[in-house]
């Protein structure tokens, strides 16, 4: 049976169809999951896609965290299910305390929409298990609040536990330690600011996102 990926849609999410299409390109099935749903049964992996959940009012992710579906996402994550938050989804995971730290406004207050070169730092996570440590990936960023920050203690934990998943080769937004993506301790919950689903075909300028998304599917099928 094909792997089925749930793509969570909050009011204001706008990258859900890109995520669905990228998953289907890789031979998986994908289903949109509305924020008011309370169950993720039948799904093998979850994507929290980009956009502006609840208008990003208050702070990006601050209100989405209280959506009914987030309890189910937390349970799914606690049971080891693969969860990846892309861009706004990363912000939601941080606000929901499924990942440590926070995403602040970019250094220089510039909205950034451009390709970024990433370096794969850890291959422990569910989105990098098919990648190679040190591998460079060309994947676009599209954000205003993408500057990752956390306490010094948290940063030490992230480094010591091999939880920095990807770094920017040239830091575009002021992120602490050039961090573009991190994982939880188990590696099954990942958040990253760059958009791998927008780098899923050479027609889009890069297919480098496929290695991350195919890793997610590999993790999902292992169960």
């Amino acid at each position: 049976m094909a792997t089925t990926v749930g793509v969570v849609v909050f009011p204001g999410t706008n990258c859900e169809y890109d995520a669905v299409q990228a998953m289907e390109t890789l031979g998986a099935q994908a289903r949109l999951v509305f924020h008011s749903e309370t169950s993720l049964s039948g799904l093998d992996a979850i994507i929290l896609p980009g956009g502006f959940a609840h208008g990003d009012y208050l702070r990006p992710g601050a209100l989405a965290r209280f959506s009914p579906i987030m309890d189910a996402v937390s349970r799914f994550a606690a049971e080891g299910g693969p969860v990846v938050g892309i861009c706004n989804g990363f912000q939601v995971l941080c606000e929901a305390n499924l990942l440590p730290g926070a995403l602040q406004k970019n250094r220089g207050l510039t909205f950034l929409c451009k390709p970024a070169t990433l370096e794969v730092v850890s291959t422990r996570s569910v989105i990098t298990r098919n990648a190679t440590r040190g591998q460079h990936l060309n994947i676009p960023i599209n954000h205003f609040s993408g500057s990752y920050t956390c306490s010094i203690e948290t940063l030490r934990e992230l480094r010591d536990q091999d939880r920095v998943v990807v770094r920017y080769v040239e830091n575009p937004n002021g992120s602490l330690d050039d961090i573009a993506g991190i994982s939880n301790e188990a590696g099954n919950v990942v958040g990253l600011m760059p958009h791998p689903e927008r780098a899923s075909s050479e027609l889009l300028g890069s297919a480098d996102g496929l290695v991350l998304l195919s890793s997610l599917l590999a993790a999902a099928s292992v169960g």
Partner: protein
Amino acid sequence: MRYNARVEVRLRPGIADPEGATIERALPALGFDGIASVKTGRCFNVELDASDLEAARSHAAALADRLLANPVIEESIIEVTPL
């Protein structure tokens, strides 16, 4: 009793404040001399019902911690006044 809780949310010391830094640089360019520092924050006025001032204060502190501020990067200052 009804109270007004004024909740000021600001960045913790040491957390970068790019908006404050931008305003700080802009003010001298507009001719305002002697600007030493600018920090940004947000202010929420929440009207709430509570049995007394202490209850109103703890109610406001709880909602500030849970939603209005992100404790990773922000702190809040709460002033409660009877209406």
